[in-house]
């Protein structure tokens, strides 16, 4: 028997791999996380021998409707509506649900931006289906089932999750887990204009929205060089030393979860499974032990350097170059040497 709260469905009526896509802040393009997801959906759809559908909703998004096609979509379902001028989680979630339930995709993927993470479970619940959070890979198993893969707590293990009796199979994906596909204007596809009855927001009203003025700083997921500190740094002062090193290398500062918990570095600079996945050319882990959940975030780093007092710290197994030593001695020595090199460069 199935739960009587779940509407009856026929599994064989569901086909296609769908992605929810949103405009970026400027409104002039599609946000990066959506594009990345279209690329990932393309690969899964090829395995399933089906199409990639994109649900593009918002106000004024009609003009962007061909963009997803250039990144791998076959069909773009557009809801361009003035009533979507303001974002409300339940309203947008409802519209995405209604649009998808009209076309019954087998798979429905949502970019796990902060808004996406807020909407995705609501959409899944509206279908009374399951949803896999923060998946990092997708596959089709011997039985032809879609498998969504996510790292569980261990950090060194991956959980393969299937959704057997409900559709769509839903998942959310964090930004930068998949690469942004090449834009290819020669790709062709179909744009389908849809009209959906956009509900009025109930019990919620936006009073104010203002941009956060950020220091002109490269976000860690885009940085080429990252100097990351862990609990062994011991203080906010210690992080200033890391900042000097990062500046000399043209990089940014990040941290482990324990450094974030200690308040030495901002939460949006946490590297790891529950933070961000980064892909710099050079990652320098300072006084970080190398827990599996942390290392998970640096799999795509080209070179990893570790500085740690403990010769047995697991981080050394995950690094290319390791220095055993107290960071309070090693980092100043590095800074001195780099300043010297910089000085020479200026003279020469």
């Amino acid at each position: 028997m199935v739960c009587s709260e779940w509407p009856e469905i026929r599994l064989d009526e569901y086909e296609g791999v769908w992605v929810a896509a949103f405009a970026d802040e400027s409104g002039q393009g599609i946000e990066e996380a959506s594009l990345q997801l279209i690329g990932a959906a393309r690969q899964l759809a090829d395995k399933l021998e089906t199409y990639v559908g994109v649900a593009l909703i918002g106000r004024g998004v009609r003009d962007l409707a061909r963009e997803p096609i250039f990144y791998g979509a076959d069909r773009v379902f557009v809801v361009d509506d003035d009533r979507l001028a303001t974002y409300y989680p339940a309203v947008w979630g409802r519209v995405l649900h209604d649009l998808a339930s009209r076309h019954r995709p087998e798979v429905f993927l949502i970019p796990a931006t902060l808004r996406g993470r807020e909407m995705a479970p609501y959409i899944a619940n509206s279908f009374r289906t399951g949803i896999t959070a923060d998946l990092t890979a997708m596959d089709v198993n011997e039985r032809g089932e879609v498998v969504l893969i996510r790292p569980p707590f261990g950090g060194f293990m991956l959980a393969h999750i299937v959704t057997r009796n409900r559709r769509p199979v839903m998942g959310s994906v964090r930004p930068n887990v998949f690469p942004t596909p090449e834009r290819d204007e020669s790709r062709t596809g179909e744009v389908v204009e849809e009209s959906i009855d956009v509900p009025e927001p109930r019990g919620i009203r936006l009073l104010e929205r203002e941009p956060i003025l950020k220091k002109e700083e490269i976000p860690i997921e885009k940085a080429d060089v990252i100097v990351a500190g862990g609990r062994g740094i011991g203080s906010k002062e210690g992080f200033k030393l890391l900042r000097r090193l990062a500046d000399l290398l043209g990089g940014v500062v990040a941290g482990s979860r324990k450094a974030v918990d200690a308040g030495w570095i901002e939460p949006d600079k946490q590297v790891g499974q529950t933070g961000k996945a980064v892909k710099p050319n050079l990652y320098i882990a300072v006084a970080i032990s190398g827990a599996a959940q942390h290392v998970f975030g640096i799999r795509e780093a080209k070179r990893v350097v570790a500085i740690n007092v403990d010769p047995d710290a697991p981080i050394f197994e995950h690094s290319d170059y390791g220095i055993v030593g107290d960071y309070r001695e090693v980092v100043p020595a590095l800074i001195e040497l780099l300043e010297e090199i910089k000085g020479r460069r200026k003279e020469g």
Partner: protein
Amino acid sequence: MLRIVVGIKWVPNTTSVNIDPKTGTLIREGIPSVVNPHDLEAVEMALRLRDEYGGRVTAITMSPPSARAGLEHVLGMGVDDAVLVSDRAFAGADTLATSYVLAKVIERLGYDLIVFGQETIDSSTAHVGAQVASWLDIPYVYYVTHARLEGGRLIVRRSLENVRETYELELPALISVAMHTLHPRRVRLSHKLRAKLESPIETWTNRELGLEPDCIGLKGSPTALSKIEMIPKVPRKNEIFRGDPREAAKWLVDKLIEEGLLEV
């Protein structure tokens, strides 16, 4: 009177959690647990609202019986009463089945405001809040950093990647509190003593709730674990330098220059 319900999860406090390969569920035996740290931030926000505007804060957890210790902890912080939702029939739930039970519990309690943590530290899905709001069909907002009442409505502030937003919510509503934004208050002896004397923890099983067996636990969970595999290790050079810090710095800089990672 403002009736606030806070959801707290009892989570294993370690990185070495194991999963039963047969059932795909957690092996909890022998692992010390704590209240999910981000849920303590939710408790803090609920208590601040109550202290400011009056009312009552009830903590709920769906968990094995050992979570009683977690409820005692938040009672020690000043929560008024608590419900331990515990039944073998609820075990093995994914987030849909978890949210279903929690929604039914909250409905039975009666509520004006539901306060959740942003996400748990064990499976970190951040699903349950939106799902509960969906079952109850009430407005919701995630990542709240500030909340106050104004004319019976809740004004909340939150920050996304690039914008700061202020929303007005009609009650009943659900909010989840942005993690790393509030310092949870300490447990106070006087609260602990009161909790001991009054024992304000109720235990509800499915006998009280009477939910269909097909909607709860493993059966009520559309997702299933089909397999667990080890993540392959990324191959690295594993070259190590021990010795004088200046020599170490020189060694590293030479390597970086060699590889073109540093310009000279």
